[in-house]
């Protein structure tokens, strides 16, 4: 008997998918407040999973030369330079002969540097004005209204500065649209509650790509198949920690039963609030959000958009029942009309 929340709302996905003796749902909690941007996760992931390179291109997006999650990058560390206060005792550039910040401008320049990663859609070019807004500079190319309210420092010298780093990954949604739309059954729900592509079944139709609300899943151009993080399904089966979490030196990437991780994350946020970091917040932890909560969720230090994450993702198949209902109604109505016309015509 399918759960009433099968397509939307809180749910334990593995039993829902038919696993009889599923263990606890496993996932990632990525605490960006302790991320040091070393990219060990990216390397470990590629090493373990045999993921090819994604091009040797200088993107100019701070120290991010990966660009985005693609079929050839299953972990992606974002770097965001911002003229905003961080937890520093004194602002980093206080009392120095600085001019206005440039981070908005360089982020805008970098937004146009997308290059061929050998995947599709790969790393499409970003929108310069959006990139600049995310960098939260006080002014940008004569468009002073571009940043959200309260962001502009108004000063013509920079004193505050922070450098955000965040290791992004497939969210392993509770309601995974990629899986829902997969016509071959290549994408499936594992006994750990994660979502995995079986590369020997994928036929490269690409439906999953447009279905993903996060823009995670991506196709390799050379073989046409879709690839993404498996949460190291093979390692999990052997009782091991996923490669990225294993390699993370600062425990920014934590792996474990999702319930425990959510508890730990709540404590961590409370602690950061206590230590004067009110901007700390969780993302993807809430089972009542648009995807029923993520199997991989995050502690962020700014709005999700700053990290390139959608602020309010919704599983693209949420409205399927409604749509089918309406389509069904429409079909019935048409059928009725046709019948009526026929009946009417014959009378």
């Amino acid at each position, binding site marked *: 008997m399918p759960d009433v929340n099968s397509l939307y709302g809180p749910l334990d996905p593995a039993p829902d998918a038919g696993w009889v003796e599923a263990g606890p749902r496993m996932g990632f909690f990525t605490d960006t407040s*302790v991320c*040091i*941007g*070393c*990219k*060990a996760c*990216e*390397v470990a992931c*590629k*090493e373990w999973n045999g993921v*090819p*390179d*994604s*091009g*040797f*291109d*200088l993107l*100019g997006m*701070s*120290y991010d*030369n*990966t660009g985005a999650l693609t079929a050839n990058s299953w972990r992606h560390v974002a770097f965001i*330079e911002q*003229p905003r206060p*961080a*937890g*520093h*005792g*004194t602002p*980093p*550039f*206080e*009392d*120095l*002969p*600085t*001019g*206005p*910040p*440039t*981070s908005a*401008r*360089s982020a805008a*320049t*970098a937004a146009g*540097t997308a290059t061929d990663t050998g995947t599709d859609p790969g790393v499409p070019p970003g929108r310069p004005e959006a990139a600049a807004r995310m960098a939260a500079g006080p002014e940008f190319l004569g468009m002073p209204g571009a940043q959200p309210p309260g962001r502009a420092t108004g000063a013509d010298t*920079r004193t505050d*500065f*922070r*450098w*955000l*780093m965040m290791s992004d990954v497939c969210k392993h949604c509770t309601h995974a649209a990629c899986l829902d739309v997969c016509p071959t059954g290549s994408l499936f729900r594992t006994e750990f509650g994660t979502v995995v592509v079986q590369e020997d079944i994928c036929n490269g139709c690409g439906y999953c790509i447009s279905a993903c609300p996060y823009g995670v899943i991506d196709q390799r151009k050379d073989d046409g198949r879709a690839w993404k993080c498996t949460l190291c399904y093979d390692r999990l089966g052997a009782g091991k920690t996923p490669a990225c979490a294993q390699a993370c*030196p*600062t*425990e920014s990437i934590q792996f474990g039963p999702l319930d425990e991780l959510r508890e730990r994350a709540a404590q961590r946020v409370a602690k950061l609030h206590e230590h004067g970091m009110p901007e700390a917040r969780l993302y993807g932890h809430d089972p009542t959000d648009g995807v029923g909560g993520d199997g991989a969720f995050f502690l962020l230090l700014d709005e999700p958009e700053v990290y390139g994450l959608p602020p309010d993702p919704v599983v693209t198949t949420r409205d399927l029942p409604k749509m089918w209902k309406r389509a069904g109604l429409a079909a019935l109505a048409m059928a009725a009309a046709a019948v009526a016309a026929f009946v009417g015509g014959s009378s």
Partner: protein
Amino acid sequence: MAEAHPVGFQWVMEAKQRGAKVFHVDPRFTRTSALADTYLPIRVGTDIALLGGVVRYILENELDFREYVLAYTNAANIVSEQFADTEDLDGLFSGYKPETGSYDQTSWQYEGHEEHARNRGTGKERESAAGLEQESHGPPVPGQTMRDETLQHPRCVYQILKRHFSRYTPEMVARVCGIPEGKFLELARAWTENSGRERTGALVYSVGWTQHSVGVQYIRTGAIIQTLLGNMGRPGGGILALRGHASIQGSTDIPTLFNLLPGYLPMPHHANHPTFDKWVDSIRHPGQKGFWGNSRAFAASLLKAYWGDAATPENDFCYGYLPRMTGDHGTYQQVLNMIDGKVKGYFLLGQNPAVGSAHGRAQRLGMANLDWLVVRDLFMIESAAFWRNSPEIATGEIVPEQCRTEVFFLPAASHVEKEGTFTQTQRMLQWREKAVEPPGDCRSELWFFYHLGRVLREKLARSTKPRDRALLDLAWDYPTNGPNAEPSAEAVLKEINGYEVATGRPLSGFPEARDDGSTAVGCWIYSGVYADGVNQAARRKSRHEQDWVAAEWGWAWPANRRILYNRASADPEGRPWSERKKYVWWDPDKGEWTGYDVPDFEKTKPPGYRPPEGASGPAGLAGDDAFVMQGDGKAWLYAPTGVLDGPLPTHYEPAESPMRNPLYGQQANPTRKVYEHPVNSVNPSPPEPHSQVFPYVFTVSRLTEHHTAGGMSRTVPRLAELQPEMFVEVSPELAAEVGLAHLGWAHLVSGRAVIEARVLVTDRLTPLRVDGRLIHQIWLPYHFGSEGLVTGDSANDLFGITLDPNVLIQESKVGTCDVRPGRRPTGPALLDLVADYQRRAEMTPDRQVPIVTTDAAGGDDAAGSTDEGSAGAARNRGGDA
């Protein structure tokens, strides 16, 4: 640290979680700064001014750990009345000899010890980097000293220190370093508040401190602070060097250096050490306190390990076979000798000097002028490919068809493909197993040298020439196994540990070493690593199964001691300073030292022991002489001997600087090693004219994504793609000044080279206000070269060669340059551009770099001398130097 040592940085993050405040001082805002509580930008090359400011802050506010300082340091020692400070001599100490560029250290000695001075200003110590010998022990001084326990005597070390640093005020720190006063005080307060009886602080540094023409004095300044605050020999304290690679500590313990033998025994000098006895006496210094009294046994046992049966007491253990130094054989002298055709062949192992060493062009030109070159590496690196692929080919300086060097490239096994030990910064040896067989022809270093020696010996077997005896008499017999006849690394470890010759029984520690030929020890400080025939370095007992000191994980030299000088963790009476920082203490009931670690003291010598008059060696140490390897048993705030560029650290400007030294007329280290050679020009610095031709300060360092010269990362796609191109980081202010655009091109020009790089304009860099001037700093990664998956110009090409006098390390963390937008010229036009800059800066071939820039010691240039009185005093006192 997060940038270059991310794995070690996890402990900083853990400490931060537990409430530690992290301060980060760096010219640019790095990944470490992002996680620090306070970030302090600094002008490159001014750390002594910053640290000197902290020393002054401690002394002026009397924040030193006074009981510790009185008992365990030389603060109370009285210094000779002949001593004159940099405050008196405008940046020089007494005894400077301009003709040799070195110091006669007679006047630096403790009161009454003047005639014991070893260094008389001949410059010889600098040639052999003699400072390196002090890595495991202090330099010699007579044991008996005059002291004033009230610290009031005007010539006691404490008062000298106070006067010496009196001008390193917060205002001066701001003026020299560009660090705002408020930030400096925040740092000084945090450091002092977190040291003392209940708390300790650790100091962690890396090559950003060492690679300077005053590199050793950077560390000295850190050591003075840590000693004043009582942070040495105690848990949570200390000074730790983060190494640039795995086992760099190991490669000084069992050295790959020209002037040392294993265990910091000095390589003999042909003139100073003609006989075994003279050599040994120069190490053990008869009459001195401390544990070097036994060095004859260590020296004899080393030679016994080398030459086995051939080494006997009658032939001085084949001492005659040991090679002798004749002067400076350091890597930079060698390179210049190669260019001059004086070196025929060269072995290059695990090193990529064409990219990683200062003055890349000199490195490549040198290697292109050899008869043969053997390169062993994991990948084809620039130092093996320079003859067919290097910047000098485009300029026509190297022509592949004509390059005379025959290069032999031998593939090497990586660390997972061979067994052996790593020694890390805590002096801990950790054994690693071989995980996989090396592929194809790849072989370990051990295999290479063992079989090279074997084949050479076979080829010479019938030789009757005396010169071949040293090779033929070697004890060169190690068990091998496997199809490739890989020598047993454990057998080598056993020899390093030492054994009884007659029975083969492994020694339990260096006290068992003998000077009669009955023991053989490969490296005396490592003795004990194979005690009981067990590979102690391979121990892997979990920290959860033992106490927090974890003495059964790996093995640390000496004697598995985890903290050196840990006698200082107890007060003079032998009681712990505090319950919180309890570590090693005297147990009066048992009458012995005990604690969590192996006590660094004679086990049963009570705290109240006072040696009889005239006692020397270990017997000369009192019960509270905690620093047992020092000639006087004390930690040295003031170094009366041993450090070649001064008994105290002094701020000197880097060899290349756009600034006049704000503190003294003496601009740069007057004892630095300068090589006058046509290939090696130095950009002018004040008071010389034309420093404005190279107006910007640049520094280089690592990115997390790459490893040193890139041989192990630019060749690996998973790393290469993460930082795929050479770039230069500039502040928005400099970008506006020069006209640089984000992701555009720039080229940088020094008196040696032009390199190009993509531009990253970033808020992470900032200009500084220094001495009333705006100083722009530029940062470059030094990982790039012309081979591998990703290539780019080498940042180290910009540097010239100027060395620290103590250990001959190059100044490759700071230089001056010009920056211009756009790509660099190619071909001969590139040489023209450098020549044009040289012409504008008047860097003519006959120019002499001015070493002395104050007339305090009779130099020609008085431009910086602001104080007539001090200059006059200098003339008077310096006259008899």
